[in-house]
Structure formats: structure tokens, C-alpha cells
């Protein structure tokens, strides 16, 4: 008897029943971005919150114009403006509790400042005197990340660690539309979903990654749709509607805190300014598009809501403007001082304990600086 005969004829049978692990339907984002301002839902919004959002939006806009002006004066090496995107950034900070963590990308200075980081310290990286001007632990804000999407797995890890420790801490990680194409984005979302980590991903879809429009970045119906494949809910929100972004993010944060796992939020917004002050946006987009988005300005949307419903008076509007002016003046003043980073600091913090090699190199630089000093002294002496 052959082996085949021993085993008998192979009778095909249907495969064992297949069950999707998760019902994708509740994970799918709505067809339209969620809106609150100008709709009936706005009546339910907390007026106090709206006023706080408003004040922060006005401050944020002023911060953007001031920082951009500082690049023109050579006080800042580079500034990626977030004008038009203030609602996303402000809502991101305000949706968190004090014990939560924020993982910003390089464009997210406003979120960092709204979280309490000193406005000057938030610009240290962009000014060029050190890579991170603030202590991440003070306000629970990770350093601004320049390589795209690399901060996302960090957020997942921190959230996971907090949960392992029994702390109800949530991590909110920010990324741009372009950043969602990176492998790190995929890996972070997958880990987060598998671990059910208390983390919220906020994609600020501002239409472009430098010159590349969203259509060349993804073929997905929306970036929020990407969530479904990982097994987490995707939410789509109007990124210029501060109340809506705050609501959706707060829901996601609550959900994560309660043990519900991660959420991916896509905020649809627009980058009004060029990629940075060094970029020439006329090479890849026309004015019409920009003008269309200007009529959907986050500050004006909220201001209209507040004034038509009588939630804010002229004096309060003026006060918000005044506060922003003061912040800008102080920023200007601090940035107009010449920072003098100490060259010897180059050798600090490379290791917990410095190495023999670094001590040698430190001595070399010290000798060079001493010689420079002496040279200057001689020159001055000669002039007298």
C-alpha cells in the first residue's frame, strides 16, 4: 500500500470558520470631518473652554507672526510657521491633563508653549544655540522631533510604561500628513494597538509635506482610515474648528485613560505659510487655494461663535489681543539678546561620565580658546 492509499483520498472541506478579530465598522471614521462651531452642537460646548481656546489661538497666531519676523532679522535660523493650524496645536495641549505627555514634531512649538513651556525656550532648537531648550520632565513635553515620525514609537513606549506602572497617564503624539508615510508611523500604530497603549495620535493634515501634496502621499480615503487596519478607531475632524478638535481629542484621551486603547485622529487643516521661511511655496501651489482656506480661519471661526452667542465682549477680545502683544514683545526682547553658548559645553552631557578622549578634546579646545583670547588681548594692547 502506498502512503497515499494509506491516508485515503483527500476530501476537501470548507476551512474553519473565519472571524475578523475586530468589527471594522465602529473603527471607521465619519465621512465628513467633525464640526462643532457654527452648528447646533456648539450650544453644548463649555463657554469657559471656548474662551480659553480663543485666548490661546490669538496668542498662537501672534507667536507665529513674531517668530517669522525674527527669522527676517536673523534672530532665528529657521521657523516652520503653523499659521492656520493653531486650533490643532492649542487643542492638543488643552486636551491633556497635567500628568499626561506630549510628543511634538518640529512644527508644534505652539502646542509646546500652550503646555506651559517658556516661549523662548521652545525656540532654542530653531535659534541654534542648543537642541532642546527645556527640560522634558517639567511640563511632560518630549523634545521637538526633527526626523519625522520617529517620536511616535516613543509615545507608545511611554504610555505603555505608565500603564505597566499603574499610572493613568496618556501620551499624545503629533505628526504631519507626510510623516504618516514613514515606517515608524506604521510600527508605532501597530504596537499601540497590540499593546492597547493609552496613546492618541494626532495627524495634522495640512495638505503638504514640503512640496508634496496629500494625493502623492497616500491613496487612502482619509488618513484616519489608516487606523482601521491596526485595529484602532480613526476619527476625522475639522482642524480649524478648535472646539471640534478639542472635543475629539478629549474623547480619545478619556478613552485611552479608561483603558480603551489608542485612537488615530486626523485633523484636516491647511498650511497658510510656506514650509519654513526658507521655502518658496510658489513653486508648488497657487494663491487660490490659500485664499480659500483663509476664509476658514480658526480664529475667525471661534470669534464668530463667541460674539454671535454673546459669550465674549469687546473688552475681552481686546484683552486677548493685548495679552498676545505682551507675549510677542517679551519674545522679541528676549530673542534680541545675543545668546552666548559656552563652547566648552560641547563636551557636557555626551555621557553620564565623560571619557578620557573627551577630556583630551576638551583640553584642546580650551587651549585654542585661550590662545584666541590672548591674541585678542594683544591686538587691543597694540591699538592703545
Amino acid at each position, binding site marked *: 500500500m502506498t502512503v497515499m492509499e494509506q491516508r485515503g483520498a483527500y476530501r476537501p472541506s470548507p476551512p474553519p470558520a473565519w472571524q475578523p478579530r475586530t468589527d471594522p465598522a465602529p473603527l471607521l471614521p465619519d465621512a465628513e470631518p467633525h464640526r462643532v462651531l457654527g452648528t447646533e452642537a456648539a450650544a453644548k460646548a463649555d463657554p469657559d473652554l471656548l474662551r480659553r481656546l480663543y485666548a490661546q489661538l490669538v496668542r498662537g497666531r501672534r507667536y507665529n507672526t513674531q517668530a517669522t519676523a525674527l527669522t527676517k532679522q536673523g534672530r532665528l*535660523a*529657521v521657523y516652520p510657521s503653523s499659521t492656520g493650524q493653531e486650533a490643532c496645536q492649542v487643542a492638543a495641549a488643552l486636551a491633556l491633563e497635567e500628568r499626561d505627555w506630549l510628543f511634538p514634531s518640529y512644527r508644534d512649538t505652539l502646542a509646546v508653549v500652550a503646555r506651559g513651556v517658556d516661549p523662548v525656550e521652545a525656540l532654542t*532648537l*530653531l*535659534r*541654534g*544655540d*542648543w*537642541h532642546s531648550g527645556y527640560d522634558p520632565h517639567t511640563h511632560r513635553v518630549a523634545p521637538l522631533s*526633527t*526626523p*519625522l515620525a520617529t517620536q511616535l514609537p516613543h509615545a507608545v513606549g511611554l504610555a505603555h510604561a505608565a500603564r505597566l506602572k499603574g499610572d493613568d497617564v496618556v501620551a499624545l503624539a503629533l505628526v504631519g500628513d*507626510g*510623516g504618516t*508615510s*514613514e*515606517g*515608524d508611523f506604521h510600527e508605532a500604530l501597530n504596537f499601540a494597538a497590540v499593546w492597547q497603549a493609552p496613546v492618541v495620535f494626532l495627524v495634522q493634515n495640512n495638505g503638504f*509635506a*514640503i*512640496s*508634496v501634496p496629500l494625493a*502623492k*502621499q*497616500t491613496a487612502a480615503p482619509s488618513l484616519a482610515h489608516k487606523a482601521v487596519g491596526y485595529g484602532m478607531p480613526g476619527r476625522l475632524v475639522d482642524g480649524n474648528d478648535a472646539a471640534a478638535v478639542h472635543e475629539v481629542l478629549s474623547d480619545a484621551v478619556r478613552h485611552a485613560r479608561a483603558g480603551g486603547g489608542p485612537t488615530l485622529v486626523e485633523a484636516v487643516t491647511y498650511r497658510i505659510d510656506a514650509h519654513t521661511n526658507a521655502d518658496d511655496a510658489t*513653486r*508648488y501651489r497657487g494663491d487660490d487655494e490659500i485664499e480659500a482656506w483663509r476664509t476658514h480661519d480658526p480664529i475667525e471661526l471661534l470669534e464668530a461663535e463667541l460674539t454671535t452667542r454673546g459669550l465674549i465682549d469687546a473688552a475681552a477680545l481686546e484683552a486677548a489681543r493685548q495679552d498676545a502683544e505682551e507675549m510677542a514683545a517679551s519674545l522679541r526682547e528676549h530673542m534680541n539678546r545675543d*545668546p552666548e*553658548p559656552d*563652547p566648552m*559645553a*560641547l*563636551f557636557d552631557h*555626551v555621557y553620564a561620565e565623560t*571619557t578620557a*578622549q*573627551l577630556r583630551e*578634546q576638551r583640553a584642546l*579646545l580650551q587651549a*585654542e580658546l585661550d590662545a584666541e583670547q590672548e591674541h585678542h588681548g594683544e591686538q587691543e594692547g597694540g591699538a592703545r
Partner: protein
Amino acid sequence: MTTVAVKPATMAQALTRALRDAMAADPTVHVMGEDVGTLGGVFRVTDGLAKEFGEDRCTDTPLAEAGILGTAVGMAMYGLRPVVEMQFDAFAYPAFEQLISHVSRMRNRTRGRMPLPITVRVPYGGGIGGVEHHSDSSEAYYMATPGLHVLTPATVADAYGLLRRAIASDDPVVFLEPKRLYWSKDSWNPEQPTDVEPIGRAVVRRPGRSATLITYGPSVPVCLEAAEAAQSEGWDLEVVDLRSLVPFDDETVCASVRRTGRAVVVHESTGFGGPGGEIAARITERCFHHLEAPVLRVAGFDIPYPPPMLERHHLPGVDRILDAVARLQWEAEG
């Protein structure tokens, strides 16, 4: 015969011209990367290529370096010659997996049956006041990976010639573009761009008798300046521009060191574990009896690349090179 005016051109323009000529000469050459199409690259090196050759030949990819290089591998497997652009040195790191695990060793893995003619262009190095992750000198990582050629031009003419050679090579080439030389100008005839020697040849940029400065890429102009400055102190320095880190031109380097008897290796990359260690070892192995002093290195400090306001203290400058040269003398007397 009419003589063509030799106009000053920038290194960036020469690179653009090289890409254009390579694409025109060979329909299998494809350029791809972030912002290389409509924008023409953040340094404008790919300017005009999408317009001239279409978006299938000069493609704005999604923002994903591993994806860019990984798909280039597949394209090369199917007979194309991809030239990929990594936007900045430190943003090439996501593509390391592809580079190290596949690009560098596909020829070897397949016993020669599947070579990968891919050129990876990487703007690298400091000195332009970039914020962090925009100034790394990553050449040592590439040099440590067998199977890759590693080239870096220092002149406008070399930028053109070497890039043409890189694209024509049947092996993968990491083409390191010193970004602070992008706007440096040379008299160069863009109408009749010239070829360079085959990959792997160093060149003596300045002849001299008393010591050799061995350098490449962004440090070449600094060494030439140092050599001029050293003249008043009685040093006649020879400057060797390596151009190709892999393969390494032992012949040119050793011939020079044997003539001068003294050598200093100069580069921006960190000294410890950096290219200079390898170069010094090779010289010592081959020229020991000709050396009047130990081979010295002038390199960047062994620290993460510093912020712009401090980078001048980190980068090897003329004074630091001259100090090393002075130590050669002392070593000789001692």
C-alpha cells in the same frame, strides 16, 4: 574652432547637469525622492528634471526613506538605474536596513547574478547653520559596509564627473554631496562637461614637499587654505583629495606620503571610529619606513553634531590643521 567661454558654475548646477545628461543618455536612469519633482529638491539639484523627462522618470515619492530605497532595489532588479535622493544626511538613517541588508550585498548574495546599479545621493556635513539632524557626516557608516562605493566630490568638475561615473556604475554608490560646497563656484564649462578618472582615484590638488594633508569633500577647501597659510611658516604642504573613500586609492596616497614623509588626515566626521583611523592605519602599514612622524588626525570632536552657534568650534578649521602640522615638526625633532 570657436572657444567656449568657461563660466563660473556652482556645484549644485554641475550635479543637475550630470543628472540631466545621464537621463538623456540612458532611458533606464530614474530619479526619485522627497520633493525632487515639482520643487526640484530642497537644494534644487533635481530642478527641471520632472519637466524635461516627466514624472515617471523624476518622481516625488511618499515621505519614507526605507520605502524609497527599498522600491529602488526592486526597480534595479527589473533593469532600471535608480538615482535616489535622501533629503539630508540624518534622514537617510531609516533606509539603513535596505542599504546594509540588501543594497550592499545583493551582488554577493546572488553570486553575481543580481547586481544593483543604484546611486544614493546624500547631502552631508556641516557648516551651513542647520538645526540638528541636518549636518551629520555619516561616511564612516557607509565605509564600514562592504559592497558599497562611497564617493564625495570637492570641486564643481568632480561633482559632474563623479556623479556620471556613479550612475554608470554597475554597483551601488553612496554619493555624498558636501552641502556647504553646493554654492561654491569654479570655472567650469557646462557646455562641454568633462569626464573624470574611473571611480577609485584620488587626486593631488596642490603639490608640496614637506607634509601631506589627506582629505575629502567639505574639508578640501579648508586644507587648501591651510596649505597657503602654512607657506609663510616654511611648510610646503601637499593636499590630496581622496574623492573616493571606497575604493581607497592607496597608490596616490602612499606615493605622496613617501615623498613628504609626513601626513595629517583631515575630516569633519568624528575622529574615534572615523575614516581617519582607517586611513592612518593604511599609511602606517605601507609607508612606515618613510614616515618622519606619526600620522595625525584632525577631525570633528567625538560628540553628537552641535547646534549651529557652536559648530565652528567643532569643525576642523585652518588653525587646528596648522597646529597639527606644527606637531609633525615637533615629532620629527623629538
